């Protein structure tokens, strides 16, 4: 029995790939002869198992890495005019929010502003434009192009907003003051978390959660979304949990547009919003073509090149607008 252990099994046992039954079999084989255990211990030691994982102070190490990346990114971020579609600035803003949080980080970037709770009434972004609003409670909102955020009531007992368009919220925890975002019939309520809300043109309102938990309600029904989950509300219907990861809904923060079987007409509308340049279809039959893909949205030309390759269409620039047409060659 002892000699029936194949080499391949010893390999799997050493590498941690063995099943429970296989492990027991090899363990018994090792235990049958004490020198085997000594030899295997010597093997591990000779190959350099001189530290258990627990001996490394991962918390302290993580703090040091954070310091490094924080310093790198903030100093490397160019300060530019706010309001236009500037990926580097937006990335720096997101990163600072993620890494540091609070108002100090926003001031460091130099292009943001703090809005006292009482004074903030509304922020509107045009096509091709974005804005970051730092609220006095420490929360922040990053508005996507063509969006509108209105403060309904921000006081001692509640923080309530209305959103049309799309925005990412990083909410300071405050158990006494729930943070609510209303979009059409849908209400998103949180205590402290980060999430994005998309409420565009009669499409279902979609909420995706990066961390913490969020309550999504419509009329009498409500669901709870956890980190990594997304949910939606269509019209006055009940909220539904969406299949799949929430990250696709958060991709716009990283300057990425993601489409999954979307109509070209909708994609074109999205590109127009992002770049503030009119993009249209020369041939209406193109509207129903489906687009699946991921675009890093540096320039409209870039995105249109990618589309033309994916769909076999042609595009051209006319004055300040872009036109997509069927390829005629």
């Amino acid at each position, binding site marked *: 029995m002892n000699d029936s252990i194949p080499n391949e099994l*010893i390999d799997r046992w050493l590498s941690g790939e063995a099943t429970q039954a296989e492990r027991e079999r090899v363990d018994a084989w090792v235990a049958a002869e004490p020198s085997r255990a000594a030899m295997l211990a010597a093997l591990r030691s000779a190959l350099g198992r001189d530290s258990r994982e627990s001996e490394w102070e991962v918390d302290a190490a993580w703090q040091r890495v954070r310091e490094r990346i924080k310093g790198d990114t903030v100093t490397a971020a160019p300060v530019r005019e706010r309001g236009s579609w500037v990926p580097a600035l937006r990335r720096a803003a997101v*990163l600072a929010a993620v890494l540091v949080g609070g108002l100090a980080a926003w001031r460091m970037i130099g292009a943001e502003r703090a809005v006292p709770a009482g004074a903030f009434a509304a922020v509107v972004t045009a096509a091709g434009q974005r804005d970051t609003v730092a609220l006095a409670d420490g929360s922040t909102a990053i508005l996507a192009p063509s969006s509108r955020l209105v403060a309904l009531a921000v006081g001692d007992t509640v923080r309530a907003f209305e959103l049309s368009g799309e925005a990412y919220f990083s909410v300071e925890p405050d158990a006494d003051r729930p943070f609510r975002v209303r979009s059409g019939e849908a209400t998103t309520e949180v205590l402290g978390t980060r999430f994005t809300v998309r409420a565009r043109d009669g499409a279902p309102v979609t909420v995706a959660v990066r961390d913490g938990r969020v309550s999504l309600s419509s009329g009498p029904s409500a669901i709870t979304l956890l980190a990594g989950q997304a949910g939606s509300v269509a019209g006055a219907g009940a909220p539904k949990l969406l299949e799949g990861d929430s990250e696709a809904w958060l991709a716009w923060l990283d300057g990425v547009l993601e489409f999954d079987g979307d109509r070209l007409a909708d994609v074109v509308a999205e590109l127009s919003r992002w770049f503030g340049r009119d993009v249209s279809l020369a041939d209406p039959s193109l509207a129903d073509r489906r687009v699946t893909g991921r675009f890093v949205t540096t320039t409209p030309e870039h995105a249109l090149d990618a589309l033309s390759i994916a769909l076999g269409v042609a595009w051209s620039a006319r004055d300040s607008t872009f036109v997509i047409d069927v390829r005629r060659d």
Partner: protein
Amino acid sequence: MMDEAAFEALFRNHYGRLCAFAMTVVRTREDAEDVVQQVFAHLWGIRETLRIHTSARAFLYRAVRNAALNRIRADRPMVALLDSPSRHPVGDPSPDPSETVEARGSADALNAALDQLGAGTREVLRLRWIDGLTHAEIAETLGITRKAVESGITRGLSALRSLLGGAGG
């Protein structure tokens, strides 16, 4: 696209093992930790453009190995790497009560066998049996073919098997 939460999870999952791995190349714990932290800081810097097509683990091991080798090249350019078991410092210098005469005998026999196999094979065996990497991950980490990985493991198993089979009696 990697956000900070994903990045932190990656760091926490791999930090200890990568430090232990770096210790097979550099001399001190401080250097090992610094090398691994440097790799992660760099990784964050390039995350916008980074696309890992195979295994994140293999990517990390390769990056740490390269950074560790660079570190010691800067210190001592002509040192033969990875082939001397005495270069592996042990975390706790006090004698282990389980280290009997027999254990030392095992260690001597084993080191002799590993020395015969050579430094490259030893590195393959380390990644396989201590770090638990797959054959494909080891090939990517070391920049060698899968065939070379498999041959190294086979040779290591034969050597180990003769020691295990022949010991005691």
